[in-house]
């Protein structure tokens, strides 16, 4: 999976699950202060990312460190690289 595919799939989650306009989805957008997500939304974000990327991240401690969209791109990218390395 390319970095660009990760960005597109993640942004699609924000458009479809959280009804956020595409123009607001910049890498430095803060998911709480800029995009308006709250604590309940984080639960749904995890579920949506799991479904979209076929990964299991519910118990990943690093989820708590996510603040921006770029953090999500990096987080998913790292998990995908780990998966590839294991194979």
């Amino acid at each position, binding site marked *: 999976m390319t970095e660009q595919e990760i960005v597109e799939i993640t942004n699609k989650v924000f458009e479809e699950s959280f009804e956020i306009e595409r123009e607001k989805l910049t890498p430095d957008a803060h998911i709480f202060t800029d995009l308006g997500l*709250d604590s*309940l*939304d984080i639960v749904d974000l995890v579920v949506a990312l799991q479904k979209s990327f076929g990964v299991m991240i*519910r118990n990943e401690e690093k989820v708590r460190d996510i603040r921006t969209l770029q953090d999500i791109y990096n987080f998913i990218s790292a998990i995908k690289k780990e998966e590839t390395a294991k194979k």
Partner: protein
Amino acid sequence: MNLKRVVITGAGVISPLGNEVHSFIEGLETGKSAVRYMEEWRGYTGMRSHVAAPAELKDERKIPRQSRRSMGRMSIFAVQASEQAIADSGITPADMSSGRTGCIIGSTMGSAKSINDVFETMLPAKDLSNLSSSMFFQCMAHTAAANVAQYLGLTGYIMASAAACASSLQAVGTAYDLIRLGRQDIFLCGGAEELHPTVTGSFDILYATSVKYNQTPQKTPRPFDKDRDGLVCGEGSGILVLEEYEHAVCRNAKIYAEITGYSTCGSGSHMSQSDKQSMIHCMNETLHCAQITPGQIDYISAHATGTQQGDTEEAAAIREVFGGSAPVSSLKGYIGHTLGASGAIELIASLIMMKKGLIYPTLNLTEVGSDCRGIKHVTELTPKKINTFLKNCFAFGGINASLICRKMEAIND
């Protein structure tokens, strides 16, 4: 104790005939049936009834996402009906956040579709990982009341009555009691319910649904008719604004009617079979509460769902209390049985009948069943001055509820 007087100052409806009071009433007045064939239910093995009266879910995106995410279909109906009722009553945001405005909204259970979705997500692999954050808030028994209260910023008493088909009349009756006691000044109250094959299925397995009219859906249900064969499920929400009389007068509010009597009781006899004696007791207690005699009731909005046994018992109970003195009709033929919402939706229709001096007849009642005779059935649109009416709801669990409303201008007659 000096009890307060309680009046109705607002109403809102989402119904199978339309998503506001006006279209709902227009449908009743023109004799429309909202019952249709449910093709998609044919996929359920064992489901014999393929008819229902759906409402239209629309404009839900007007509710902001973070409020909407905790709402199943029924809570969206309840919020939309509540917004109508508030606009109709003219109560203000200051009223709603005063701590003196409460909310009681009943339903049989939480959102049926959401409950189904949770189990479909969780059970195949016994895996909770993909459950979303808000599913519980859609499934909980007080979902409609909680969602309405959160969305509108209500800070008074927030409660949910869960008594199946008597839920919303119990909600209105409890609001009436709490305002009478001086606990609150205003209540948003009523009920909400949503269609789902599991809901109709729960009646179907008890042989309580209509099964003979799948190809002619608009001929069923048939309350009190000799050819009735069961109920048809509907959905929607009915919400009323109840208000302490002086509070309403002080702000020059429009008043639909005064609630003068309410009672609820259990049959203590059977979980699903209606019971004439307890129905009689409930109606008599309501008359006693209102301090009037049976002869002073000008109209009875019957529960009558079109089941064999339920209609027989209700007709017998009305016959014993009222004889043939009070005109009786059931609205289930138009909108099906909206279950936990039915009491409030049909109460609103009765308030409009009172205002217009017109009784909407029992749709599909072409020949009264021999067991339902001896009461004054209304089978055509009938002009009638209504000063006082009685609304009945009788539910699974052996729960009865009745409520009496009186026209304001008749109060001092």
